[in-house]
């Protein structure tokens, strides 16, 4: 057993863990942060993405299935459950407004990856969002509304109007013509 101290969503945990325990299992089963799900075992899907701050204090997205819990010793981790700060994060709001989720299983990882994407590139083009989220798979949405949600959140975080629901960026030509 190894001893680790990790801050998860603002709470400090100090635990003995098996050296082989995956970080995502630590988060889910020891820290009880079940908001972060597991979608695969080869780090392809990104459903388990969380933010981790190391010694430099900079939060970066990591796939928590491809790290060991012991590697998280001394870090601060933010999961989807700790993202809201009094009110929902702009990405949480935008994902709902733009219908960027259906079953919602990929959503925690998608949002956490997008947080990192927006801090690197606050105003991404739609292609930059697509490329930036390539490591996060969604089987429900076809990604179109995810791209729009990320751009919408980026605008809101930059203090620009987020736009009418569905009225921005890559507007689709929806509408009934009965």
């Amino acid at each position: 057993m190894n001893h680790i101290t990790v801050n998860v969503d603002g709470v400090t945990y100090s635990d003995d863990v098996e050296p082989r325990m995956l970080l995502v299992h630590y988060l889910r089963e020891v820290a009880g942060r079940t908001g972060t799900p597991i979608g695969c075992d080869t780090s392809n899907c990104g459903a388990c993405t969380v933010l981790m701050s190391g010694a430099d204090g900079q939060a970066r997205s990591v796939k928590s299935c491809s790290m060991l819990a012991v590697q998280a010793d001394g870090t601060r981790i933010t999961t989807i459950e700790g993202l809201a700060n009094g009110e929902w994060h702009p990405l949480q709001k935008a994902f709902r407004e733009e219908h960027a989720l259906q079953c919602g299983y990929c959503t925690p990882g998608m949002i956490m990856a997008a947080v990192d994407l927006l801090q690197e590139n606050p105003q991404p083009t739609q292609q930059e969002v697509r490329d930036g989220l390539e490591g996060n798979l969604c089987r429900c949405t076809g990604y179109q509304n995810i791209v729009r949600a990320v751009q919408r959140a980026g605008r809101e975080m930059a203090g620009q109007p987020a736009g009418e629901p569905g009225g921005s960026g890559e507007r689709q030509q929806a509408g009934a013509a009965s």
Partner: protein
Amino acid sequence: MTATEAPGTGTPAAEIGRRRVRKEDTRLVTGQTNWTDNIRLPGMLHVSFLRSPFAHARINSVDVSAARETPGVFAAFAGADFAAEQGALPCAWPVTEDIVIPEHPPMAVDEVRYVGEIVACVVARDRYAAADALDAIDVDYEPLPPVLDMTEALKEGSPTVHAAGNKSFDWVFSGGDLDEAFRDAPVVIERTFRQQRLIPSAMEPRAVVCAAVGDEYTMWSATQIPHILRLMLAMVTGIPEQNIRVIAPDVGGGFGSKLQVTAEEVLTLLLARRLGKPVKWTESRSEGNMAVHHGRDQIQRLRLAADRDGRLRGLSVDLLADMGAYLMLVTPGVPLLGAFMFNAIYKMDAYSFKCTGVFTTKTPTDAYRGAGRPEATFGIERMMDELAVELDMDPLAVREKNWIRHEEFPFTTIAGLTYDSGNYEAATAKAREIFRYDELRKEQIERRAAGSPVQLGLGVSTYTEMCGLAPSRVLGSLSYGAGGWESASVRMLPTGKVEVVTGSSAHGQGHETAWSQIVADKLGVPFEDVRVLHGDTQVSPKGMDTYGSRSLTVGGVAVVGACAKVIDKAKVIAAAMLEASPDDLEWSPGRWSVRGDPEQGKTIAEIALATFAAHNLPDGVEPSLDSDATYDPDNFSFPHGTHLCATEVDTETGQVTIRSYVAVDDVGTVVNPLIVDGQVHGGIAQGIGQALFEEAAYDADGNLVTTTMADYLLPSAADLPVFQTGRTETPATSNPLGVKGVGEAGTIASTPAVVNAVIDALRPLGVRDVAMPCTPERVWRAIELARSGRSPDSGEAPSAAPAAAPASASGPTAESGQAQVSNPTGGAQ
């Protein structure tokens, strides 16, 4: 309280048709979800399963004794330990009287028939200990020959999967005189297409938790079908149905893969019973790719007869459908759902359909988004393009020549279905305009003339589908083991709030939102006041669950029926409250009032409170407004649409890029456009996955080689284009909401649109077909083969070549494995 008012009108705004963000999202975007794998019960143990590494082998012995001694292990079992009680996994769709349904023990006892079949299990304190102990189990296998190719499997003397042989059934169906249609037909096209095997890949892997308390069992499962599962668990295990409760908590997608009664569910239940403790199993992705049922996997031999002007005379369909090693819940019925759809939106004189179900030593197949209908739509839409080329017609023109015209509805097709409504002209015109079809055709001609290394291809798919599964009588006539109705209850609470119980179990579709919109309109209550309950057999005791685009068209209509009954009951009580005759009352949304004196009225909330108090109810009137309804549709619903795809194909590298994609769908009345667009987007993405990326591949020994998401390629955001969606709205006449269903439309339509576009780009090079998925390698090989002037038929022999092609056709194409190209003389358009 009143419902939301339309601006300036004073009347409630219609909720149906309104863009409502989803109620479900509040928990889903904050991580407050309740996935099955999140459930932890006191004393809960974890199970792991040992799976066969052989495609086919006899089990001589299984020794679990060392595993039982491993630290943390409570128990370890082989199939023989459960032989007396595990029963057999059910097949609910015996499509013919003489169908072969092999015995399917949840845990193999004597023989394994696909890689991934369960042979033993360990129950331990935690998931790590359970997984560790699997290594200590010793199984003595005697390998048997794998059976991997359907055509080979049907040959005399082939190794057999089961003692009864490799054929499960032959199912035939026809309409009109096919011989007459083909006799002296000026044009006959014959092709063989391959529907590759797919892995549904819902993002949430399966998980099951089962708790046994006394003789009562509660199962949480990541399932689409809690009600069917409960019934089947009772039938398989003999546990009385009333002692089983099944809960589908938050479920992370299904696409048909969770429309199943699985070995893991049955075994988790039996383990909980035997050990008297809660037991949990959570699947890993690489385990799931082997063990979750696969989809598609057909060889389609198609013959089409037409007149020179493009009019269809007849169509003959001969399918081989890979069942895999066993028949699961609806395995044999899946290709039959295509039997009524190969004729699609077209009129023709004659049609015949034959399907042979074949056993192989592969993972069983079963429903995957669309289930039979994508296969059929692919077949006919590829054939319509081939016919257009043969006749040098525009592919849209040849379709228009044959489709059912708007004024001809209702129309009974050659397959015997009556399409209630549709407007193929309107959808196609709209799609054509958004797509800028004519401009793209011009550009295509220019690129061809210039000999551009990147060629442009335009792909067409005009589809319909049968949705709203299903009229119970029809299911009965097709030998399905259950009905197709759906149930709903509406409960009026004393505060005027509403609980809606639906038997349709959502897993991402947004029922909580859409059903709230329907009830808000019907009862005239605020959207926010409606709570939708589902997915728990104790809360929602009756249901047929969610699949086949049935939730809204069947379950939503049941909700409408229950609302109507609530309103009727409220009328009697309102009359008493108003001291008026019920006959003198009139309903406006949310309120019964005296006709001619609208001030004299009672809101549904006031009536609900008075009903609860029950102080002054008329004699003989029950103190309840709560109402149940069950809806059994008279007919299927028939969404339709036109999808157009433009691909750019790099003829030097084989890379396919989707340049634009337009989908105009007619799903009837739209309850929530946000949800409908989302379903369309996701459906198109899955169909593109089949066209370009996905394939469950096996090696020569029968090992699945695409066990991970690194090998089985799901489209990422970077792989997909922007979808331009539009709608026409021709309400269904077969149900009171006018809805048709949208869950599968995109997947059904998009695969042929994309493949037709790829091939259209390559026609001038002599390429006539590319087997799916159209990967760069396959496209490149197809181009090279065409350039070399070789026919694929002389190279890698197709494994299921059809009979000699008529002179007017260009010969059969290969259907398996490698890229195929046609005779290079196959003309450009």
